[in-house]
């Protein structure tokens, strides 16, 4: 038996024994994921049990090094673990910005002490992180941020305001872009610091969205304290890390646009009926649906192609520059079509008959996809200038 087969056998056995039955049911939505933290939101006690057991083996973040709390698994082993978890429909034990955003940045830009201090608690689900990027007067123009960090010897004092900080009201620590220097161009003088949210100088107020949920906050800093040992990278060089994370985030958001499992056109035909040739009765909607599905197919093919090109050692091609833009626009189209296909229940907001407005709320939420993480307009600017080489105005 190969090592990998043996690993599979052991993994299967361990999962069978350790994954609680309640954690073998798929999550219903974002709110159902376990995010950890000092005061975790726990819908079911098994969530913590499951997270702790996985964390003990480093399997909450199986591809990170063991020394930082990860599982130290190689690509093939990670794949086996995912497959075996999928086999029993095991939930992901832990979902957090620490894993998806800060961790990769620290592994790339952090010093040894920072990795040692911050990564293990992320793996164990002990500390929940949020991201302090956008500001009220710096939306797409992120680099014009004004939140100030004043040098006080071994620490900074932070003053200013962030907005669109995801779950800042529930996070323990923040990774935050601050201005340590005003003298150069706007991209210079930005620093990337980490600090604890549990201090008197920090206040987070949730923002209610048009979809009715409040995943984001306005966050205010009034002499909030950040230790200098928690400055990541050099002072004034934080923009490099910010760009790295923005790209990372865009790739995550673009995933929204993947082709759905069930064809929307078939759902439409089920709901609205077919003509004698088996075609959706309404030919107008049929055109929009066919064009949407065609584009979703071609977009999925493009994501595969770029993946295959990377695997073949050809590097990340120019096609990847369109992912964020196209994926989010596609997702918005999909959501508009949902309203047209599902009709009256899709414009319902509350109540069981409308499944608490899931379709409408998803539709409204999708409008943010082409704004957050760099608007579609900014994406198109980037393609025009960096890929096509068109000049500045």
């Amino acid at each position, binding site marked *: 038996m190969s090592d990998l087969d043996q690993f599979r056998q052991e993994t299967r056995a361990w999962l069978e024994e350790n994954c609680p039955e309640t954690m073998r049911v798929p999550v219903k939505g974002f709110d159902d994921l376990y995010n950890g933290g000092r005061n975790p939101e726990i819908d079911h006690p098994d969530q913590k049990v499951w997270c702790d057991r996985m964390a003990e083996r480093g399997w909450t973040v199986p591809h990170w090094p063991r020394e930082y709390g990860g599982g130290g698994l190689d690509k093939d082993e990670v794949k086996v673990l995912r497959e075996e978890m999928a086999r029993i429909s095991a939930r992901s034990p832990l979902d957090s910005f620490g894993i998806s955003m800060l961790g990769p940045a620290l592994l790339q830009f952090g010093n040894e002490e920072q990795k040692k201090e911050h990564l293990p608690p992320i793996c164990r689900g002990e500390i929940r992180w949020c991201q302090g990027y*956008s500001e009220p*007067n*710096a*939306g*797409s*123009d992120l680099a*014009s941020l004004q939140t100030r960090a004043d040098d006080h010897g071994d620490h900074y004092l932070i003053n200013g305001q962030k*907005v*669109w900080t995801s779950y800042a009201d529930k996070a323990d620590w923040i990774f935050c872009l601050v201005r340590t220097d005003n003298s150069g161009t706007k991209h210079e003088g930005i620093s990337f610091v980490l600090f604890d949210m549990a201090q008197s100088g920090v206040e987070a107020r949730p*923002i*209610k*969205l*048009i979809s*009715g949920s409040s995943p984001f906050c306005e966050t205010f800093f009034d002499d909030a304290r950040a230790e200098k040992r928690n400055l990541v990278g050099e002072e004034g060089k934080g923009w490099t890390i910010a760009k790295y994370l923005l790209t990372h985030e865009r790739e995550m958001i673009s995933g929204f646009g993947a082709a759905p499992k069930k064809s929307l056109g078939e759902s439409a035909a089920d*709901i*609205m009926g077919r003509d004698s040739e088996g075609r959706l009765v*309404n*030919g*107008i*909607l049929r055109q*929009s649906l066919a064009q949407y599905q065609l584009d979703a197919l071609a977009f999925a093919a493009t994501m595969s192609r770029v993946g295959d090109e990377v695997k073949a050692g050809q590097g990340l091609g120019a096609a990847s520059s369109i992912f964020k833009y196209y994926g989010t626009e596609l997702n*918005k189209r999909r959501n*508009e079509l949902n*309203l*047209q296909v*599902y*009709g*009256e*229940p*899709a*414009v*319902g*907001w*509350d*109540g069981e*008959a*409308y499944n608490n*407005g899931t379709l*409408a709320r998803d539709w*409204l939420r999708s*409008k*943010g996809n*082409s*704004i*957050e993480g760099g*608007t*579609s*307009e900014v994406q*198109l600017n980037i393609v025009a200038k960096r890929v096509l080489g068109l000049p500045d105005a």
Partner: protein
Amino acid sequence: MALVLNEEQVMLKDAAAGFLAERATVAHQRALRDSEDTTGFDAAVWKEMAEMGWAGIAIPEEFGGLGYGYTGLGLVLEQAGRNLSASPLQSTVLVGATAVAQLGTAAQKEALLPAIAAGETLVTLALQEGAHHAPAATAAVATKSGEGFVINAEKRLVLDAHVADQFVVIARTSGTPGTESGLSAFLVPANAEGVSVDRRSMVDSHNAGTVTFAEVSLPADALMGELDGAWAGLSRTLDIANVGLASELLGLSTEAFERTVEYLKERKQFGHIIGSFQGLQHRAAELFAELELSRSIVLQALHAVDADSDKLSLLASAAKAKLCEVAQRATNEGVQMHGGIGMTDEHEIGFFIKRARVAQHTFGDYNYHLDRYAEQVGF
């Protein structure tokens, strides 16, 4: 009829604009929503509207109305669209009164139209059964029972269902679902035995509900017009309803657009007013063109109603299809161009996108009406 407003109409439009911008604004709508108001519109404001004659604006003078025609009503609805004002203008003035006028007997008109015109009675149409507007697909059944009828039906998206005094219920008295003949209309009081209303919370926070008619016994004179013969009157009622909704969507889209253009003139990014970026300028200019086309087709459709044109069905579907398309574009651009702030509940632009989609869906969306338009045009 020239495609311009006459003096009387301009005055009406200005009066409506002034009144609604003060008494039934988006802020008022937000307050109604957040207080979970049980009426869902401001009864005092509605009383004032009725005092100004709006409840009978399109009702002939012989029945106590103003006789301004549907062009007049369209102008008021356009202003209601600009302010997202909730009121019985749609349920009762646009649809209910029209259904009574188109389908009712002389006695029913005598009894109801003056009461509607006085703002004393709310009448609404109970039609849709499935997820989509499909009037010929009506499957609800009314059966003969002695002199009268027994009706069984579940109707969705009934406007102002929770406060209506009377329902105009469309049910099948013969034929099979999918055919236009065999449909009849009945006048059913809200307090009749077997009628139950489930008020529904829609995305626009306006007022609609599901109404169940369980073995509701009706006297013979509840029948509106001919037995099995509701189609023609229903069709005309729906054409008019859709022209009215197109008027509302015109106001809504124009207001969303104008607010967005104003925002483009204020917001700075990358050291520039974002309204100076040509990418946004061209999109705004294209949308402006579409809104001008929208205004023309709505006005033409309103005139077709008042002139009793044989092109009404064609123009009604044209106007509704065009306004569904343009309202979708205007509200989507509105949110996108406002950026992050447009995604917040605190900002008002979100109210426009929400009301738009419900109005688009009501009595047939873009797909329904563009399909119907193509049929009317002959292909």
